[in-house]
């Protein structure tokens, strides 16, 4: 009996020990932004189905976290809604060599709110009013300025609770980029960064896009900025914004695409597409970026990473469309592929 048990455990140990290196070779890890996480999650699952033995594990820990882990070389690729700053680039380069940054997806940030069902969806907000709300200057929903814009809606006498991110995020970066362009007071008082000091007295913070979505859903009178996919997934009521050209728009793939189209040349140093002057351009749109080392230490693995990421920016894009993201425009996808081909992999 005892020998049988010993043999069994020995065989199990052998299997585990021999299988482990095999399974490690087939797992690619990435970490970073929560903005594209729904898309990555679905896409990598599909990739796993197609390429049976390759498993891509992406952790949505925030743009800042993604850059940290990428610099520390604990992951194969990172993702961030904002390309790295010169300081971050310097740290990453001294850690693992030249960095390649490429756009992975295009998305929009929508403004979701929680008001009684009597107030219909599509509440109208001007860009300036949105800034005022987040500055804490407009604190109640039945404020005269809001009522004037929405004569039909009977806005309740409820406190506005602006929800923001508690963790550093690229979503916050795009949103504060937008607010800085729209309000001089915001630009001087708060600024544009992945993590800021939020001025509104009645605000609360939550972790991740999913946290903000949850907080808005749980708190009556809350308003928050979330990536469109999260708002759609959670069936949240979204506001209409008036863009720079003066048109009232809702956040949807068509309007996000229009914003991207206003910038034919895109690079890691010139990437902002918020508040652009396009006719039907959604004012809070942004690309999300991936990053990978040009010469990773493990060459065979680099080939796998290269293939996965190239697939992500080309064939996986239709998957993005099913979740409310916008597939990368053709010229941007080609740019991404060209960037990825700089990777030094096996056989080059």
């Amino acid at each position: 009996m005892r020998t049988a048990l010993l043999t069994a455990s020995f065989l199990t140990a052998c299997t585990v020990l021999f299988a482990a290196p095999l399974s490690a070779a087939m797992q690619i890890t990435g970490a970073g932004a929560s903005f594209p996480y729904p898309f990555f999650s679905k896409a990598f699952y599909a990739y796993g189905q197609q390429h049976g033995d390759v498993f891509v594990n992406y952790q949505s820990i925030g743009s800042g976290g993604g850059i940290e882990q990428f610099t520390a070389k604990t992951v194969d690729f990172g993702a961030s809604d904002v390309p790295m700053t010169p300081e971050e680039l310097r740290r990453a380069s001294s850690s693992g060599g030249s960095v390649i940054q490429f756009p992975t997806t295009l998305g929009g940030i929508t403004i979701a709110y929680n008001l009684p069902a009597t107030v219909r969806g599509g509440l109208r907000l001007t860009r300036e009013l949105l800034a005022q709300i987040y500055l804490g200057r407009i604190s109640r929903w039945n404020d005269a300025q809001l009522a004037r814009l929405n004569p039909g809606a009977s806005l309740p006498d409820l406190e506005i609770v602006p929800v923001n991110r508690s963790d550093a995020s690229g979503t916050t970066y795009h949103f504060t980029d937008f607010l800085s362009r729209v309000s001089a007071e915001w630009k001087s008082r708060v600024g544009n960064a992945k993590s800021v000091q939020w001025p509104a007295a009645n605000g609360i913070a939550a972790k991740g896009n999913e946290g903000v979505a949850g907080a808005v859903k749980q708190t009556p009178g809350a308003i928050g900025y979330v990536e469109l996919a999260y708002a759609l997934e959670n069936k949240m009521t979204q506001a209409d914004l008036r863009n720079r050209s003066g048109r009232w728009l809702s956040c949807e793939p068509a309007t996000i695409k229009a914003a991207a189209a206003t910038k034919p040349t895109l690079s890691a140093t010139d990437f902002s597409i918020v508040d652009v002057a396009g006719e039907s351009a959604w004012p809070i749109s942004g690309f999300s970026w991936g990053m990978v080392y040009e010469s990773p230490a493990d060459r065979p693995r680099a080939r796998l990473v290269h293939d996965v990421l190239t697939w992500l920016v080309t064939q996986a894009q239709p998957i993005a469309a099913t979740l409310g993201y916008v597939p990368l425009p053709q010229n941007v996808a080609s740019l991404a592929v060209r960037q990825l081909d700089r990777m030094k992999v096996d056989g080059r």
Partner: protein
Amino acid sequence: MLAGLLFLSVVVGIFVELAIKSAAAWRMFGLAFLWHADWNPVTRSFGALSMIYGSVVSSAIAIVLAATVGVLGAAYLADLAPRAVARPLFATIELLAAVPSVVFGLWGLFVLAPLMRTAVDPLLRHAFGFLPAFRGTLFGTSLLTAGIILAIMIIPTVLVLSYDVIRSVPEELREASISLGATPWETLWRVVLPAARGGVFGACVLALGRALGETIAVMMVIGNKPAIAPSLFAPAYTLTSVIANEFAEATSALYRSSLFAIGFTLFVVSMITNAAGRFLTMAVWRSRRGRGDER
């Protein structure tokens, strides 16, 4: 002895590491770091005051509630309850101690916070609204909710330890009291609990230490706002939540160093709390032993 030395070296190692990594923040802000309420990653101005406030107040609420419920509950289970009731109740409460923090957090976010916002907070505001602590907007995720969830988490600690202490009070004291004509309730209140005072106090301090260090559950229900507001219904931030929320993404050196400084502060506060608790417990125990020797 080896185990003891190993443990000691780990503790000292943590202290030294925290001190080194937080040096930049201490150099930049000095001791004023502890009473600055600013937390601004853009202008790189950091201060721990709002987190210290959040930690202290939420833990204070927790220990007040937990001590009341825990000690009285332990007294009931030890002396007054019939065996058939005491045993299953005790087992259930011990089970509560095994629930993971994040599960408490989830429950707090989806059950307790809405309950607070819709039922409890309005009642409190109605009854005590004349106090600044009970005024203002009701968010659900607030300092008060965090305090309550911490209380629920540390009640098992207080109760189980108090139970042991109360049971260890010599039976002669109880017998003497009853023989003098006291009721069980009077015995409990006037003889047993005062005798168990030192140990119970020690249990409370231990539970306080746990409350100060609790991270995930608090992070999910406190609102994560680095600001000090007089109202208990307002969101707040704790020393533990800020580290859990922001450490992974703190990209500037000063930001990281400031988070280490917060960790250092937390470490020191926990050490002081525990040391104070032990000292007081020892003092009471020593004095009781002295009196006992005279008998």
